[in-house]
């Protein structure tokens, strides 16, 4: 080793020397050649943009900040942090590839969710079902118009479930190569719910419908809340075992919350455990933001399909709400149908806010929480169907 060799070694290990890949003669398309050469620096900028969305625009920052940072780290040349022996590669393998992280987060979601409003007004569950149309509408378009394979189309469709852990779980099973793009789309659009939903809601409802006041909810007993997760899980066992890891984690968390005898565990699920897993889930999802997988037309298509999925879901929920209002004995404000997409509790707040715009005495929040939490169950079930059919 002499000083010249050492300096060369060091130079070859710098980022400057490795930022731009040499021309690959086997790539013919000039655009692909450009991406091949400049992919990493472009992805670093993309990740900075995602960070900005998370920090400045507060787009689901708890997830988007770690995802964007993980993506930044993964696109650093030489370091290979997302590789099989890299820090994020190892965490990805242990936590996402095997499906543990999304399930643990779903436990925490269960431990934070109150199904009371749904139990008090069971029929609003249908609105949470109708909104899953977003999933299958996007699947159809992805498959037939955008040329994705069936497993990929299923993973893309699940964006319309508006449920982060569900999206990540399904995508890691069906189409792990799309995980980065799908996770970014899912969390970004969840953050954009207050922007995406109101115009659709207003377009599809009359002013008369929007001012409908709903009957107050009955009180729900503690016992009902304890039995409810078991009922959901049992139905899932009977009809759709493929959805049981997701629904099982959700109902386990919820049972721990409601049963009242394991508060230590329920608190831990809602705090230390979900936070720790969120950090590592975010960082390791980011490890799938590599240039060759993200800087593709597929990603653009996924972003388009994602917003369509959210829109379809919102529309389906609202339309189904209008139909239910026609046939129901008690009045149903169709605005709460939009909350069926889940994105808990954002979508329910949006329904409440739009309702208040037109009738300042109309507090729809609690009524919208019914379809909202039903939407979580609904997309869990839809995930089970996709895992059973598309795999």
């Amino acid at each position, binding site marked *: 080793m002499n000083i010249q060799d050492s300096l060369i070694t060091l130079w070859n290990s710098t980022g400057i020397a490795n930022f731009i890949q040499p021309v690959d003669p086997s790539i013919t398309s000039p655009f692909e050649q450009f991406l091949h050469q400049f992919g990493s620096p472009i992805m670093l900028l993309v990740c900075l943009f995602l960070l900005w969305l998370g920090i400045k625009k507060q787009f689901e920052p708890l997830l988007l900040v770690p995802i964007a940072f993980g993506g930044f780290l993964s696109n650093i040349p030489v370091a290979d942090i997302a590789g099989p022996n890299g820090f994020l590669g190892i965490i990805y393998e242990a936590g996402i590839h095997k499906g543990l992280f999304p399930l643990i987060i779903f436990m925490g979601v269960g431990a934070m969710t109150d199904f009371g409003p749904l*139990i008090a007004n*069971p029929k609003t*569950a249908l609105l949470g*079902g109708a909104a899953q149309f977003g999933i299958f509408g996007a699947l159809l378009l992805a498959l*037939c*118009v955008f040329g994705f394979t069936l497993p990929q189309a299923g993973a893309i469709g699940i964006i319309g479930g508006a449920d982060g852990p569900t999206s990540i779980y399904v995508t890691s099973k069906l189409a792990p190569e799309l995980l980065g793009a799908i996770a970014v789309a899912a969390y970004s659009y969840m953050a954009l719910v207050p922007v995406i939903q109101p115009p659709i809601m207003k377009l599809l409802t009359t002013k008369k419908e929007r001012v409908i006041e709903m009957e107050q909810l009955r009180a729900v007993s503690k016992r*009902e809340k304890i039995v409810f997760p078991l009922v959901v899980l049992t*139905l899932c066992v009977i*009809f759709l075992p493929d959805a049981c890891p997701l629904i099982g984690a959700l109902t386990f968390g919820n049972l721990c919350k409601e049963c009242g005898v394991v508060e230590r565990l329920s608190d831990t699920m809602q705090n230390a455990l979900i936070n720790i897993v969120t950090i590592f889930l975010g960082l390791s999802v980011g490890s799938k933001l590599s240039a060759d997988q993200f800087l593709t037309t597929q990603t653009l298509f996924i972003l388009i399909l994602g917003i369509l999925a959210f829109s379809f879901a919102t529309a389906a929920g609202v339309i189904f709400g209008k139909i239910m209002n026609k046939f129901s004995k008690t009045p149903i404000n169709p605005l709460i149908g939009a909350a069926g997409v889940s994105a808990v509790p954002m979508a329910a707040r949006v329904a409440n806010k739009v309702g208040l715009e037109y009738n300042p005495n109309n507090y729809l929040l609690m009524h919208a929480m019914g379809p909202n939490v039903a939407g979580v169950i609904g997309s869990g079930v839809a995930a089970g*169907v996709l895992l059973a059919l598309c795999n």
Partner: protein
Amino acid sequence: MNLELLEQGLIAMFIGMGVVLAFLVILIGAMGVMSNVVGYLNKIFPEVVAVPTKSKPSSAAKQDEQIAIAIAAVMARV
């Protein structure tokens, strides 16, 4: 657009929405049954659930209190 793909997609949609809605319809029925059964149980054993659960820790707490007093007394003599 490939007709076979369209068929595949439509099948996925029909089955998917069918299963989701069927699941939720059954869930609505099950919730109705559950509410009735639990309501009935709540009538038969009205506060039986809540009271012993609450009184148990509180009696344990009382006992602990007594113990604490006892220990304090013991310690005071040390």
